């Protein structure tokens, strides 16, 4: 455990340097939650009717979309970090030193997304909480806190599947940004952020059910809409955690397969 904490601390240093030593990046990061919020709302108002949405779903569109986006983007930070890292390490020439370290690949890759995820979570909260305060008053702040906590659960639950999918894709087709581009829209569609899962058709619902964060998204949406019952929340979160356990062997296998592939080809120096 001490080793993992040290690794997270080291990753924290890397993320700090990456963000805070480049003024342009930190500026983009700071305004990013607001830009995303504005963009999502603009698009929503342009193509749909807020009234129709409110009638059908039972909640104001901005609130629904922004809360879902917050959860989605903080969860996506995990996938991005895991998938981006092998590409970055290969281009900067650090991959041989990472692979030849005694730290197991899976442990290292668990530590990688933690700092950026926490950063994304904090920054996103600066846009999320004011919005909830405006729409729901003090109760909104409480809902916001629950959403932040559920985002942590969602991202943590997603690590095994993200690693299994990400490293698995790299084993099949090699490290490429295209793999990230391929996964992102699928996740957007199936996580149910912009279209509630309980309104999905059966095939979509089944596929969506296989994603642990989709269950967390559903819980958050139910809380926002006011449909959260203790039983459904418990069931959803239990399924998310059960899926995490189910995907864990896949994560271990993908990490091992990726390392083996690298060792067979020879890690590029």
């Amino acid at each position, binding site marked *: 455990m001490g080793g993992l904490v040290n*690794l997270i601390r080291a990753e924290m240093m890397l993320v700090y340097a990456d963000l805070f030593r480049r003024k342009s990046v930190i500026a983009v990061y700071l305004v990013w939650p607001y830009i995303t919020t504005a963009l999502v709302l603009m698009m929503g108002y342009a193509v749909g009717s807020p009234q129709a949405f409110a009638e059908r779903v039972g909640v104001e569109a901005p609130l629904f979309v922004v809360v879902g986006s917050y959860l989605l983007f903080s969860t996506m930070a995990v996938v991005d970090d895991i998938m981006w890292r092998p590409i970055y390490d290969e281009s900067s020439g650090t991959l041989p030193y990472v692979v030849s370290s005694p730290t197991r690949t899976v442990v290292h890759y668990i530590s990688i997304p933690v700092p950026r995820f926490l950063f994304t979570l904090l920054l996103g909260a600066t846009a999320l909480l004011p919005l909830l305060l405006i729409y729901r008053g003090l109760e909104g702040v409480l809902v916001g806190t629950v959403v932040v906590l559920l985002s942590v659960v969602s991202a943590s639950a997603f690590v095994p599947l993200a690693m299994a999918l990400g490293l698995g894709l790299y084993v099949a087709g090699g490290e490429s940004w295209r793999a990230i581009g391929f996964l992102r829209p699928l996740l957007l569609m199936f996580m149910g952020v912009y279209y509630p899962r309980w309104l999905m058709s059966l095939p979509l619902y089944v596929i969506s059910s296989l994603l642990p964060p989709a269950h967390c998204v559903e819980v958050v949406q139910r809380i926002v809409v006011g449909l959260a019952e203790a039983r459904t929340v418990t069931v959803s979160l239990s399924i998310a955690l059960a899926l995490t356990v189910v995907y864990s062997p896949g994560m271990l296998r993908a990490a091992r397969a990726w390392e083996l592939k690298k060792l067979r080809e020879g890690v590029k120096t």
Partner: protein
Amino acid sequence: MDGMLSLDSFYEHRPVNVLERETVRDAIVAEKLVKRYITKKRAGLFRSRTEVVDALKGISFRIRAGEVVGLLGPNGAGKTTTIKILSTLLLPDSGRASVWGYDVVREAQKVRRVIGIMLSVEKGFYGRLTGRENLIYFGSLYGMEAGELKRRVDYLLDLVGLEELGGSDRLYEEYSLGMKARLALARALLRDPPVLLLDEPTLGLDPPSARRIRGLVRELATRDGKAVVYTSHNMFEVELVCDRIILINKGEVVAEGTPEELKSTLPKVRTLELHLERIPEGLIDEIRSYGLEVREPTQAPDGLFVLRVLARRPEEILDDVVRAATSRGVDVARLRIEEPTLEDVFVYFTERGTRDGGSG
């Protein structure tokens, strides 16, 4: 070794939880290592052709603790492949290798605890971290405890001379090549490993940086008993640093021994070196007609052309060669007889590709 820090304090700064080291006579053993790369080459719009490259064809060697061994060979000979296998970054197709008694395939995790590697001078660190932060990052990855790591990093930055160059807290992306090499060596020494695998550690470095690295490597082997594998194309450097040389060509060991042993295995051929204002037409052909080997002429910094003629007894052919030049209206500005160098050994064995080395 001028400008070298004393290594006396090195022993005080050793990590406390490094692997208990036993006395291992053979720090590295490679037995019949084979590696074949299969690559796909595009052959038309939709077709590709599979190409097989035999990188290693069953090489074997042993390296003892406290020994610096130069792994030499032309480009593509298999040096980097060998280093990668020893550093657990590449799986061999067959054969076996062990480092500090641990098998590189079956006990890769244990091997990783006893090696320090330096694979590229110009990259291998995170650009937006400082030198110190980079070492802390990799130390954490290597499982070092925070307090111990900090002390070790401070010490190593001093040892490799980055502290005095003001590089410890400068961003890596602002480093010169010499500073990058020093940092790479510091990383290789982070855990004070008994085995160092250094792939061209002085490539492209300025003389002070190269000298610093050579000096450190030499002392670490002599005083600390580290086994060092050192690849380089700089024969002067290899002769200076290495106790023994393993010459690889086309995936095979073609010679092995100390520099002196290797030189003594050359056929008793020496070099007659002539410095001429120009190379007149027909001169080289005439010298070759005496049954002598003539190397392609080169130009010296002073503008004179240097012609090298290989002969068993250069004294005996001296007159004929000089006459051949003067009869074509060219004066010989300088001439000298050279003893064989390590470069001659390299050229001789890599051109012939036969295994006929010294004892080793």
